[in-house]
């Protein structure tokens, strides 16, 4: 017994993590024993996978404050074994992965339905390989293992996205996703290539030790921004998100949006702060501007969507934009040696990463339950679900308040920290930057405010009002496993919102690693109750007191009204200014709700209107708001590629002797180089 505890407690976090990764892969393979047995896979394998997630999060939590650990596996290339390293940055993102995936896995356990594609076993294999690959990405300490894990992640998620591959649109969405994922992978590969600097040593340790001059460091940064930006959905590489997220089953959308996008943020931070030695302020300006465009673009398009999952996908683009703005601010402060402020901006960024993992996963899972019980994804045909699905509706309300960035939940804390970082810009020595940054702050605030508009639309149209279709009357609530998963994520939103000082002291390990400074320690000085930005006089916020205040006031007012007056209620038909013939179709639809945004920000959309003529027998009105970038950037490139490949295809004759000639010419050409 003693030896057992010694083994258990002697384990390093990195060993535990490798164990969890192996465990996940095993779970996936076990599912193939009985790929159609829903009970076995749903009630045994997925809950075990969720437990694995919790263990991973626990190990990551233990590793955050500890010294970096390394491991070398006897796998990989002959002279390049797999290197792994667990430091505070990896540990933080592994906590995010473990904690969010635990909720998603337990929800997935209840998500299977009889006779739905794909078979649960196949899905389970892809799902758990996806999880394991993301964990390896965060642990990898050489470029080779990183790329292997990165590609495994992309491929397993591709199969998950296309699990209903019999539908042509889903195949198209999957293709687009795969294409952009690989464009990004090329960028990352080139970025590693630049960083190894011709020495041929692809371990991250060697990259950390080498010094690049400004030009090559900047090339590396831009390549990383391109490569990881393609995965994160940064403008203009965002086009796959609104296609792939609606195509995928909801738990997969949750995992991709909540967790996989963060692996890209992890990669960007790893390359920019972990591997490159010096950072330049103009990188920050680039990141800031790109992030800003991404955030505003995402939120505007989210406002005009009519498909609930597309809406959430665009909202993910917005959140990634805000995270990128945080990274940009960190870079600017770091380059000007304003360490404490860089730490503040970085803490806000990381905080937003974990917040987004929780609330976005929660909302995607909510759409999954709605989709299952109504078979409807279009917002225009939903409504009134709060009456049939109270559990889902109230848990979704928590997610809605959190994502709208309202106190006292978690979304507000990270936005508060980010705005505090913005307010510190007058201390920048460059007057050009201190002019630019307030304008940026204004635009970020606009994006955050519009997110509130979007979320009222999302929640109000799905859950409130009257059902727009008759079939909605039979909608049923989530089952207990689904409720458990949703509840875990909602709990995370509340806990992250109420205990910011605790979270910040944990984030200190990461900010110390990357910027050399901390925020949590100064935050903790004024007690666990108050989170402060830099000093107590400067700003303080106490979510716990805030919640206490609201709840006390609520109860007080309720009791006073009841005591002093009465609580009598009568029910009657809705009044609506005395309008007698109301139907459910008179409510605002999703289009109606988005219309003002379409009108105000018209130049940003490509709007196609179909207007019926006055004499039309069957008048039909249609207004579509589309992405301008798709027509201005993607289609021309696609046409160019097609034209070029037509030219090149003249080389293709299908005759073997001509192909032999090609080989001969190539050989000659190569010999010319090697002499």
């Amino acid at each position, binding site marked *: 017994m003693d030896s057992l505890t010694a083994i258990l407690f002697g384990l390093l976090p990195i060993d535990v993590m490798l164990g969890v990764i192996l465990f996940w892969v095993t779970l996936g393979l076990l599912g193939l024993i009985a790929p159609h047995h829903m009970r076995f896979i749903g009630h045994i394998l997925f809950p075990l996978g969720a437990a694995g997630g919790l263990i991973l999060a626990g190990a990551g939590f233990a590793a955050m404050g500890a010294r970096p650990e390394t491991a070398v596996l006897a796998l990989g290339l002959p002279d390049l074994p797999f290197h792994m390293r667990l430091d505070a940055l990896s540990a933080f993102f592994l906590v995010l992965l473990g904690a969010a995936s635990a909720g998603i896995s337990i929800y997935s356990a209840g998500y299977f339905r009889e006779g739905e594609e794909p078979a649960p076993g196949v899905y389970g294999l892809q799902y758990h390989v996806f999880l394991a690959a993301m964990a390896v990405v965060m642990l990898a300490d050489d470029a080779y293992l990183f790329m292997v894990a990165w590609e495994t992640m992309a491929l397993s998620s591709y199969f998950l996205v296309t699990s209903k591959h019999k539908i042509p649109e889903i195949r198209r969405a999957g293709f687009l996703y795969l294409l952009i994922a690989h464009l990004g992978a090329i960028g990352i590969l080139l970025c590693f290539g630049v960083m190894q600097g011709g020495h041929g040593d692809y371990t991250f340790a060697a990259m950390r030790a080498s010094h690049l001059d400004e030009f090559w460091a900047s090339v590396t940064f831009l390549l990383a921004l391109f490569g990881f930006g393609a995965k994160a959905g940064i403008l203009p590489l965002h086009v796959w998100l609104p296609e792939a997220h609606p195509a995928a089953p909801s738990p997969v959308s949750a995992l991709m949006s909540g967790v996989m996008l963060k692996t890209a943020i992890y990669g960007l931070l790893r390359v920019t702060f972990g591997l490159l030695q010096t950072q330049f302020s103009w990188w920050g300006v680039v990141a800031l501007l790109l992030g800003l465009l991404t955030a505003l673009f995402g939120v505007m398009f989210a406002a005009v969507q009519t498909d609930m999952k597309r809406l959430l996908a665009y909202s993910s683009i917005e959140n990634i934009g805000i995270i990128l703005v945080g990274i940009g601010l960190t870079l600017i402060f770091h380059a000007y040696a304003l360490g404490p402020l860089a730490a503040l901006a970085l803490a806000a960024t990381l905080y937003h990463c974990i917040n987004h993992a929780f609330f976005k996963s929660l909302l995607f899972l909510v759409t999954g339950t709605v989709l299952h019980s109504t078979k409807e994804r279009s917002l225009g045909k939903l409504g009134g679900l709060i009456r049939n699905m109270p559990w889902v509706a109230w848990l979704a309300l928590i997610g809605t308040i959190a994502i709208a960035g309202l106190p006292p939940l978690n979304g507000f804390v990270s936005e508060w920290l980010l705005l505090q970082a913005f*307010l510190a810009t007058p201390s920048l020595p460059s007057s050009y930057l201190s002019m630019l940054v*307030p*304008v940026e702050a204004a635009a970020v605030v606009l994006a955050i405010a519009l997110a509130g508009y979007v979320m*009222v639309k999302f929640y109000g149209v799905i859950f409130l*009002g009257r059902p727009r279709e008759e079939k909605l009357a039979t909608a049923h609530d989530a089952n207990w496993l689904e409720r458990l998963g949703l509840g875990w994520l909602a709990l995370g939103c509340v806990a992250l919102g109420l205990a910011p000082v605790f979270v910040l002291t944990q984030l200190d390990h990461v900010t110390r690693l990357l910027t050399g400074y901390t925020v949590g320690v100064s935050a903790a000085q004024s007690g666990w109750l108050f989170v402060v930005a830099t000093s107590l006089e400067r700003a303080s916020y106490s979510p716990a007191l805030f919640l206490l205040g609201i709840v006390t006031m609520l109860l007080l007012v309720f009791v006073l009204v009841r005591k002093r007056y009465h609580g009598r209620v009568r029910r*009657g038909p809705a*009044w609506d200014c005395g*309008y007698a013939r109301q139907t459910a179709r008179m*409510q605002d639809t999703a289009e109606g709700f988005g219309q003002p945004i379409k009108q105000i920000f018209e130049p940003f959309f490509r709007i196609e209107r179909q207007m019926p003529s006055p004499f039309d027998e069957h008048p039909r009105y249609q207004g579509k708001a589309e992405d301008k970038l798709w027509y201005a950037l993607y289609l021309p490139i696609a046409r160019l590629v097609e034209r070029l490949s037509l030219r090149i295809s003249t080389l293709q004759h299908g005759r073997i002797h001509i192909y032999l000639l090609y080989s001969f010419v190539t050989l000659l050409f190569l010999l010319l180089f090697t002499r």
Partner: protein
Amino acid sequence: MISSIFSQLFQTLLIVMLAPLLLGWVNQCRAWLQNKRGAGVLQPYRILHKLFHKDAVLADNASSLFRSAPYVQFACMVLVASIVPIVATDLPFAAAADVIALVGLFALARLFAALAAMDVGTAFGSMGARREMLVASLAEPALLMVLFTPALIAHSTSLTTIVEALAHREFVLYPSLAFAAVAFAMVALAENARIPVDNPATHLELTMIHEAMILEYSARHLALIEWASAIKLSNYSAIGIALFLPWGIAGTGDLGAVPLALAVLFVKLLLGGAGLALLETLSAKLRIFRAPEFLGTAFLLAVLGMLLLEL
């Protein structure tokens, strides 16, 4: 300690209890300006009293969200009242929420109002919710930018610290504060559903914003909402006074200055209310799609004010 708690309770109750009076004063002034006799400054209290006594009538399909929303709105407004210094800067609760959290509180109340308006599923309810959220999502950034200007001057986002800094330091004229003040006035008009963005007295269905959202409410729920809007108006006045006319507000531990501060407050509120009535009488309501231009102007003014500070 005891005196701070007393100061906290006193200021919060002052705003909550006197909010309907300010509303009554504005209405009375407007009546006078329109050559009417008016219902007297106490009319809002009478209306509240009447509404609280009535039986609540709920739509058949109203959910519990609909019933709880008025309480949430009221609680949020009281909480805002407890962090804005109006008489003295001695406010212990103000450490729990700074100006950003204050904007968040307004937004939280608005979110519940909009969701509740969509709950019954009537045409006007969802129209009101949409318009309110539109106005708010354009007004909110402007409000934050307005608040950031004094925050940058005072190096703090805590309202009490800002007022300490502006009222009790040597007198400096900041041109950026003038920009911020104009922007703030515009935002305050929009957020409080006043002319030119909305008309609190309207009952013409297609022009309503705020009134459309609360059409389905009656009795005590309506009373709480009306009272909450009155407190909101007082809160905005209090914020405006604290940021742009802070002179006279007593500093921490300065009990002797409180009577004078109270008197000064009443004078400021009387003048402010009369000014609001004058403005509302002189201007006409904008078309709904002109409202974004109005708020965009406020937003740009606020950003300009902030930029002037950086020069």
